[in-house]
């Protein structure tokens, strides 16, 4: 009997909170807030906050066209796999004290899982056979490489800081990191973690591929790159994935640096998480979006491997010497 209840509970985690339904609603809302904020900052009225929902349902009603050059299965399957991988990431990220699945993965797993949605998009684009997708794929991969180094440094710095404090030397487990913050307060209050948090903030737009790091999609040059041949429901799923990715990365930021703020009541925590995510989205995505122009791909690479990596490396060095 308990097995059935457990199974239902886990199914609930996957489907409702913090899984699929939560991802869908919160991600889309984040996306809407982002668009509204950017518009406001640029002195436009902007779309209503629920616009991403309208867009999504509209797209789902449209016909899907598979180009003649495309490899059908990969083309149709990859949006779904990408979305599923994102939902799974969300399941591993602790919501303050609460973790849906704690014994399965750790920071390094998250680091690699973040590659999976991007990989799904790349393969889908590649399978479409469009040369625009080829260029988009090349740029997307370079963006991933760019973000990888600073992200690795940030995660290692966090692992060292927490591990040094709890006495195991290093700690990759996200739930342990969350527990540590429950007891000792948020990591962002540590001086050594400040540069890492700043680097993470700068990483979020790069990882999600938002402006100005959206060379991979660049509507005006390469017709949305990887998505050039996508239409209808698969395109809608990719748009949804983009929204969910914003949620994943911002909630990863919350889990890494802003833990310990939770109230202990899950519903309140969920709302709090969403509010914090919205705040981080505003700071790291919308704000940067509003006042920058798109960077060229080699500039993105240079920027991440110099400025952002330096920030993260400073943090790692501080953590290394126990500050």
């Amino acid at each position, binding site marked *: 009997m308990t097995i059935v209840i457990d199974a239902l509970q886990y199914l609930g985690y996957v489907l409702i909170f913090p899984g699929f339904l939560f991802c869908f609603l919160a991600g889309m809302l984040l996306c809407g807030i982002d668009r509204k904020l950017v518009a406001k900052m640029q002195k436009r009225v902007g779309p209503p906050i629920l616009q991403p929902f309208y867009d999504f349902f509209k797209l789902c009603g449209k016909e899907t066209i598979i180009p003649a050059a495309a490899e059908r299965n*990969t083309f149709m399957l990859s949006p779904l796999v990408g979305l599923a991988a994102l939902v799974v990431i969300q399941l591993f990220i602790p919501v303050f004290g609460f973790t849906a699945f704690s014994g399965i993965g*750790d920071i390094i797993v998250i680091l690699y899982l973040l590659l999976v949605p991007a990989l799904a998009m790349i393969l889908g684009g590649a399978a479409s056979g469009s040369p625009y997708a080829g260029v988009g794929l090349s740029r997307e991969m370079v963006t991933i*490489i760019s973000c*990888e180094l600073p992200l690795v440094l940030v995660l290692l710095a966090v*692992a060292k800081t927490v591990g040094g404090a709890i006495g195991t030397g290093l700690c990759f487990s996200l739930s342990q990191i969350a527990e540590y913050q429950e007891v000792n307060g948020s990591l962002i209050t540590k001086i050594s973690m400040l540069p890492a948090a700043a680097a993470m903030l700068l990483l979020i737009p790069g990882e999600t591929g938002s402006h100005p790091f959206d060379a991979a999609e660049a509507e005006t040059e390469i017709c949305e790159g990887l998505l050039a041949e996508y239409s209808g429901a698969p395109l809608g799923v990719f748009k949804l994935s983009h929204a969910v990715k914003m949620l994943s990365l911002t909630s990863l930021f919350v889990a890494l640096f802003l833990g310990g703020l939770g109230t202990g009541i899950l519903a309140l925590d969920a709302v709090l998480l969403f509010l914090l995510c919205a705040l981080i989205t505003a700071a790291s995505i919308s704000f940067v979006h509003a006042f920058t122009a798109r960077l060229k791909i080699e500039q993105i690479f240079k920027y991440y491997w110099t400025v952002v990596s330096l920030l993260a490396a400073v943090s790692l060095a501080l953590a290394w010497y126990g500050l």
Partner: protein
Amino acid sequence: MNMLGNILSYQHFPIYAIMALFLGSFLIAAFGEKRSVRNILALLSVTAALGFILALMKPVVFHGEIISYWMGAREPAGGYAIGIALEVDALSFFFALLVAVAVFVSGVYSIQYMNRDDNEKEYYTLYLLLCGGVMGMVLSGDLFNMFIMVEILTFAAVALTAFRNTVRGAVEAAFKYLVVGCMGSTCILVGTAILYAQTHTLNLAQLAQLAPGDVNTATRLAFALLFVGFGTKAFIVPFHPLAADAHGAAPASVSVIISGVLTKSGIYGIIRICYFLFQSMGLGAMQFLLVFIGSLSMFVCVTMALAQHDFKRLLAFHSISQIGYVLTAVGLCTALGVSAGLYHAINHTLFKGLLFLAAGAVLHETGTTDLNKLGGLAKKMPHTTALFMVGAFSISGVPPFNGFASKWMIYQASYQKAVESGNIGFLLVTIIALITSVLTLASFVKVSHSVFFGQLPPELANVKEVSWGMRSAMGIFALLCIITGLFPNLVTAYLTEPAAAAVFNVKNYIEAMGFDGSAAVQLEAGGFQHAGVWDPVSWLLVLCIALLAITIVAVAGKYGNVSRCRAPAVENKYQLFYGGEEQEFSQLGGEDLFWGFKHNWRGYFKFMHRLHSGVVNDYALWAVVDLALVTLFSLIVL
């Protein structure tokens, strides 16, 4: 009856496994004129070798026995080993199992892969000779015997590299490999000779007993020579160009053996000399040597791979990059590190074998491996594509495939080492390993786009899927990739941990041969502490549930509402959007990808391109310089 029982005792199985391969080779040379006879003999001998090795699993792994076998029952006399010995501990068994599996699968693949070549008889003779050489080397308990086996395998590998001598660069690659490989073999022999002069024995166990006792200039020199010699077999930096050249020209089934198994024999040799023969020389410095060369191989080769536009050459560079991972992890000198390194060694054999076989399948059907001339094969060869993707995901460490499980352990081991020793160098190693991994992914994204996805070039319109025999060989590897990825606990418990324990148990190794092991340095193994958690089966379950849920929602919606656009000009519906132009073939060549990255590193790439000049003298010079540096290092630091 008793005699039969004696013959079938597992004590004899190591020599049977070696003899099965060599005998197969000789029989094919003698009677292999007919194709059916040849194929049966080849299959029989690889299957027999696999069977004998698998039968050893029970005594060696489960009972922890070390099999010592004196050829002709010539046991040591007067405390000195006179006869030739085989000694199979968990480490040897581990490598032998890798050899047996790779040899078996590659043998099955060869049957149909080589059917368009002439001189198949010579091919199988050399192929089994190569396999027997590798098998003999990892099971041998005698340093000089190891040298003989190394020579046999080098010879067979060189001959097989030049086997398709009409392929561009095949003979050239073979010649380069022969020259530098023979320099390496000469180094091994000189090292062996010096050790013999010092200790008057060639038996590994006895050397392990005697060598630590007197560390002097001569043994240091011997260490450097042996290290460089086995380094040439493992193709670690600076010998990586040889691997790239050789793989590009050799048949794919041979590449599987060269990359999956021959390089492992080099790693095996390095483990034996570093941990068994010279462990008293100061492991700290030896650690530095292994980890430094490992990280260098890892990084240099992955960047070299990014610059390639030949499928097999690219795979060859990746092969050495992964060997770098193995060497680095093994060099960490912790139980977790060695275990992780060996785990990665298994995975490397499996996924690299799979990738080379996929490359071979593409070559077999299209006649080229140039990334700029291929594309869109997913529609023509769906199974090969799926199998290739399994390999590509495995090597780039996408969870839940096997590459991820071992890399995850390697990061932990290196970072733990960094934290424990306070040495910032190991931290750097962790970062390099992580970056190398993402560059590997980039490289395989390039391959999958340029070969399997993208647009199909018009001249490849008649390509067909490869035969079932080749697909099933790839399928075996793919299945093993998934299994070893999903059950890391089983793999570590039954394969890598016993082998790692053998590395840290030199005393048992010496005493199993009847020598006095009391003087052996017992290494502190340390426990297996995981700083993180990774449970692939649960993860996969969660992913499947999420995917299922999403798919149901999608299908309930209008996801399946698809219309296929065959050709824009034909369908009236879309004509509005076209100016009436024909759809042209426009595929982005493999060379043109990742511009933003290459542009920022153009100085580095230019430098590397100049360095890999392709002149055999330069590669020989690298070997000499490497030898000089390692000698200096071992004389001064060790």
